[in-house]
């Protein structure tokens, strides 16, 4: 009798598959149409690790879309939204891109990471539309590495790392720096490398370098090695992300090492500060201050609006990136008059310190990411974060990126 059930099972599986296939057989709908609404497809992570970055980006992008639609659209064309979840998967990124394309996307916003957005960009290219990541920071958004339709609204990692290095030198008067790298993600490897290059270029010394693992159960050896230095470093640069990086900061402080700590925008936001009670002398870069004290009133206004709709964002990265992706689309469309990739790419590549909410944005025919955008330096004292100053890097190193 069991064998019979089994046969039904096989037939059932097949029936569901065939049914599912034919159900969506009529969904063909090419992108790049020039009339009707502009369809923006979000091929982003709604679940998995990257959802934390992508969801705020989608929320702020939708805020901008609402604002545009209320104002009558872009050149009279309203914006519609379609979405698909990448599940923080590399092959999911490809299928999610396919799905938003099938739903008629004319422009795609992809996930907040270079590696995981590349498959979506490739699919977008095959369908003649532009794909833009709201916050990926990799300098590999280059036309000789990825298809030319791929862009990132993010600030290049070297720009942030260089700003922090220059800030440490000029404002904190630090001469020696100690670099702690968590090599789990490529972002941090680039960040540490760029910091080191800038630091050495400006005449600082590297007191030491060490690595630790994001998921390690013990950071004592790393702490011991700092303590055993004959001379304590003036600053410590941490290239990592929460929670592993936060755990490192906690251990550094609890072991009595009180050198100022510098860190990039991975530590943006205040949600993790509770893990290191009373943290002081901590400086990190951010794309906006979420505390209402941002120097740019436009940013404060946008954050206020977002907070009203969704509560206070955890970090500034996604919120700034998502909003400005739509701003860029609006500006480039007004220039190009179409969403067709070649025209839109040409329009985007004319951006030269274009003023967007996220800050001056530059794309050229090689780099599809802004390399030299000022960052906000945030200061944490006694567990309280506040905006310290804007920093425009003077010398941004170019990482030897293949």
């Amino acid at each position, binding site marked *: 009798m069991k064998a019979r059930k089994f046969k039904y099972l096989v037939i059932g599986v097949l029936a569901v598959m065939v049914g599912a296939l034919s159900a969506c057989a009529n969904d063909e709908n090419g992108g790049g149409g020039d009339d009707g609404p502009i369809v923006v497809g979000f091929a982003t992570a709604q679940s998995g690790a990257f959802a934390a970055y992508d969801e705020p980006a989608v929320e702020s992008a939708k805020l901008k879309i609402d604002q545009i639609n209320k104002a009558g659209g872009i050149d009279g064309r309203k914006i519609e939204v379609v979405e698909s979840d990448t599940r923080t998967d590399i092959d999911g990124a490809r299928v999610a891109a396919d799905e938003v394309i099938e739903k008629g996307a004319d422009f795609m916003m992809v996930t907040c990471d270079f590696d995981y957005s590349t498959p979506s960009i490739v699919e977008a290219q095959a369908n003649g539309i532009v794909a833009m990541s709201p916050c990926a920071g990799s300098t590999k958004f280059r036309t000789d590495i990825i298809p030319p339709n791929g862009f990132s609204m993010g600030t290049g990692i070297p720009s942030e790392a260089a700003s922090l290095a220059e800030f440490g030198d000029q404002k904190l008067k630090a001469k020696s720096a100690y670099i702690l790298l968590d*090599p789990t993600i490529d972002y941090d490897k680039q960040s540490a490398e760029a910091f080191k290059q800038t630091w050495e270029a400006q005449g600082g010394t590297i007191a030491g370098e060490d690595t630790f693992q994001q998921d390690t159960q013990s950071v004592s050896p790393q702490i011991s090695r700092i303590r055993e230095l004959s001379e304590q470093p003036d600053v410590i640069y941490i290239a990592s992300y929460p*929670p592993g990086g936060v755990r490192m900061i906690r251990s550094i402080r*609890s072991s009595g090492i009180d050198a100022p700590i510098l860190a990039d925008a991975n530590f943006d936001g205040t949600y993790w500060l509770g893990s290191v009670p009373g943290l002081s002398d901590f400086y990190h870069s951010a794309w906006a201050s979420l505390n209402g004290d941002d120097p740019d009133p436009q940013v404060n206004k946008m954050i206020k609006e977002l907070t009203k709709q969704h509560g206070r964002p955890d970090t500034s990265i996604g919120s700034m990136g998502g909003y400005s992706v739509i701003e860029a689309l609006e500006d480039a469309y007004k220039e190009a008059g179409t969403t067709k990739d070649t025209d839109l790419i040409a329009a985007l590549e004319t951006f030269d310190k274009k003023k967007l909410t996220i800050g001056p944005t530059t794309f050229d025919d090689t780099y599809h990411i802004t390399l030299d955008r000022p960052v906000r330096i945030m200061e944490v004292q006694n567990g309280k974060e506040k905006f310290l100053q804007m920093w425009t890097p003077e010398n941004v190193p170019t990482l030897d990126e293949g």
Partner: protein
Amino acid sequence: MTDVIQAVVDALSLASLYALLALPVALIYGIMGLINFAQGELTMIAAYGLFLFAAVTLPLAVFMALVLVVVAALAMERVAFRPVRNSSEETLLVTSFAVSFLLQNLALIIFGSRPKSISTPSSLSQSFDVGGIFIDAVAILTVVLAVVCIGGLVLFMNRSRFGISMRAAAEDFTMARLVGIRANAVISATFAIAGALAGVAAFVLVVQSGSAFATMGLTPVIIAFVATMMGGLGSLRGALLGAAILGVITVGFDQILSEELRPARDAFVYGAVLLVLLVRPSGLIPSNRERV
């Protein structure tokens, strides 16, 4: 010299943590042949328990987290593992994958993927300088908790009537039932203990890192799994020995590897594990348990 002592202190504290992680896995395997990958999610549940109640007072949070995780462990056994209890070890294992996957994703839906901060008293994150050796309060806490838990468990398993029943069940489950030991009671008790140990481990992890997040159980359970297998599956002493060795070689490689090789530390650690296995295929202390 202080280098060596410092390394010994570090290794001791890491080995204690690993022991806390490995014990419940070995305990459950011993009783029912299940390598419970969802043990990591028990740790995660306890950590979120601490997060939810930490705002009140820490003792209450610890108590509530323990209650929560023990209830979760019992529920896990009742709902997912009891129906497959008599299946093959691989079915049991994959059931635990599924449970682990389910709980992780539920946590992601409920709490999101950003870590939650938990503040613990600053006295727990102090550090003492003893003649050039730095000892963290959390290291002392880990060792003390491990010693108390292991000691308590050893006492319980050797002295109490129920503990002896559990040892009998671990050795020969059917025979234990034949003398009248109730299978359900023994298995439930084992899960309750595993839950409580997960709670203790979670407390240590939270004091270390100050945060709780959905995937925090993965690395601990892999460590527990490797330590248990290396020590000899089903043998509690083996699990403790395996945990100790894993802790020591992890700290050891962290000390001796050059900075270029250090990022690949785990390749060396697991190379050592592989060597141990090749020399002692049944683990360091093989258990005398027979699966019937």
